[in-house]
């Protein structure tokens, strides 16, 4: 059982045009920058993948990571809760120009829909968004005197997730609030690709401390010094990075 791969380029090599890709992170925390950049590299070299549907909480910040993926023209549709950031110019301009579609989902519903996708729950009811524009067209049902909106699961072809530790089985830990959507997206994608700061041998993670059990992970690549989106943006970096 060895799910490790030698580099990020090989990790993302199977992502093809039109796929739905979940990308972990809340703002910069947990954003798998190196996996995203590897995907951009491939697009610049081959013209693929393109026409992606991306699921992330946000829409990128500045000109690195998810924002750079969008800026490269690879994303046809974004499913997110909050497409604003300190510097949201990339998404904003493309959205207002009609070059990218947006499905806006309340954050808790987004999280629960992804979990539902991973847990085999095709639909569930939530009070969230009842009576609002975001519930339009969705079935409503009353339980115990209160109205709830029916929401559907979200699944993906691929998830790109940033972890702290990984072992060859794909067992993962995360770092602080970089955990956010990672454990959910690992569950909901047909293929979960993880960049971990460190790969340890089996047994290197205490079974009590595993956050994502390996069954939810297909590929693991070590990225020892991952970039943090906030640091790149403070340095006004754009991708491809100037060197």
């Amino acid at each position, binding site marked *: 059982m060895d799910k490790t791969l030698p580099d990020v380029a090989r990790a993302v090599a199977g992502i093809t045009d039109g796929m739905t890709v979940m990308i972990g992170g809340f703002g*910069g925390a947990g954003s798998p920058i190196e996996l995203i950049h590897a995907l951009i590299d491939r697009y610049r070299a081959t013209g693929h993948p393109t026409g992606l549907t991306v699921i992330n*909480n946000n829409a990128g910040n500045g000109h690195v990571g998810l924002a750079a993926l969008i800026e490269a023209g690879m994303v046809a549709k974004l499913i997110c809760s909050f497409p604003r950031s300190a510097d949201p110019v990339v998404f904003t301009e493309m959205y207002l120009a009609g070059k990218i579609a947006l499905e806006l989902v309340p*954050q*808790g519903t987004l999280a629960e829909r992804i979990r539902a996708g991973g847990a085999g729950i095709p639909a569930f009811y939530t009070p969230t968004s009842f*009576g609002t524009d975001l519930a339009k067209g969705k079935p409503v049902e009353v339980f115990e005197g209160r109205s709830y909106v029916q929401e559907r699961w979200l699944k993906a072809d691929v998830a790109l997730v940033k972890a702290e530790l990984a072992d060859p089985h794909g067992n993962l830990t995360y770092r*602080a609030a970089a955990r956010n959507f990672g454990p959910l997206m690992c569950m909901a994608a047909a293929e979960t690709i993880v960049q971990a700061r460190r790969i340890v041998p089996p047994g290197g993670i205490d079974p009590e401390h595993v956050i994502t059990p390996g069954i939810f992970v297909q590929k693991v690549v070590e990225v020892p010094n991952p970039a943090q989106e906030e640091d790149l943006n403070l340095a006004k970096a754009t991708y491809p990075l100037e060197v």
Partner: protein
Amino acid sequence: MDKLTNNQIAWRAAQDIADGAYVNLGIGFPEKVAQFQPPGRQAIFHTENGILNFGESPAKGTEDWDVINAGKKAVTVKPGTSFFHHADSFAMVRGGHLDVAILGAYEVAENGDLANWSTGPKGVPAVGGAMDLVHGAKRVAVITDHVTKDGKPKLLQRCTLPLTGVGCVTRVYTSLAVIDIEDGRFVLREKLPSLSVEELQAVTGAELFIPGPVADLICPEV
């Protein structure tokens, strides 16, 4: 017209948070409430991106960008902090485990409706966790200027902007008054002493009911 500063509105809202309460503060202005916890009371703050019992902002230059709040500002870890993923975080929200959520508002209606996520079809819409919070926390309060920048009422009979939640707000802390929402009506509880009820009514977009005494809204300089 006298009015409270944002700090004073936040201070007033903080006085209603009980010791040991679990609290979520909306991003931006509501975050200020955390600064004004009364002495001897310790609220536990939740941020929907996966931290419970986080601490104050770190000194500039010492930020850990994996320890942030929902507004993507750096916060800190304290004894008793825990980290968790987004589904668990919104289980706390949706499951009724938070005692209070304090949010900003574009508009609040006398029926408790809140509009605070969209100013209409122009621009890029963004909702974040607001729609979850308004139907999750046991008590949903709003802090806001009493009127818009151009002087129009923010407290209305019905919201005109896209709703965040239906019938969810029970108390509004404004720059002029503290108003409860009960049985589809604005009930005036406190107002600035320098302000008459008539003056307050003139800048409020729905009728103010006064079933009991109205206390003076007095806040320290903070």
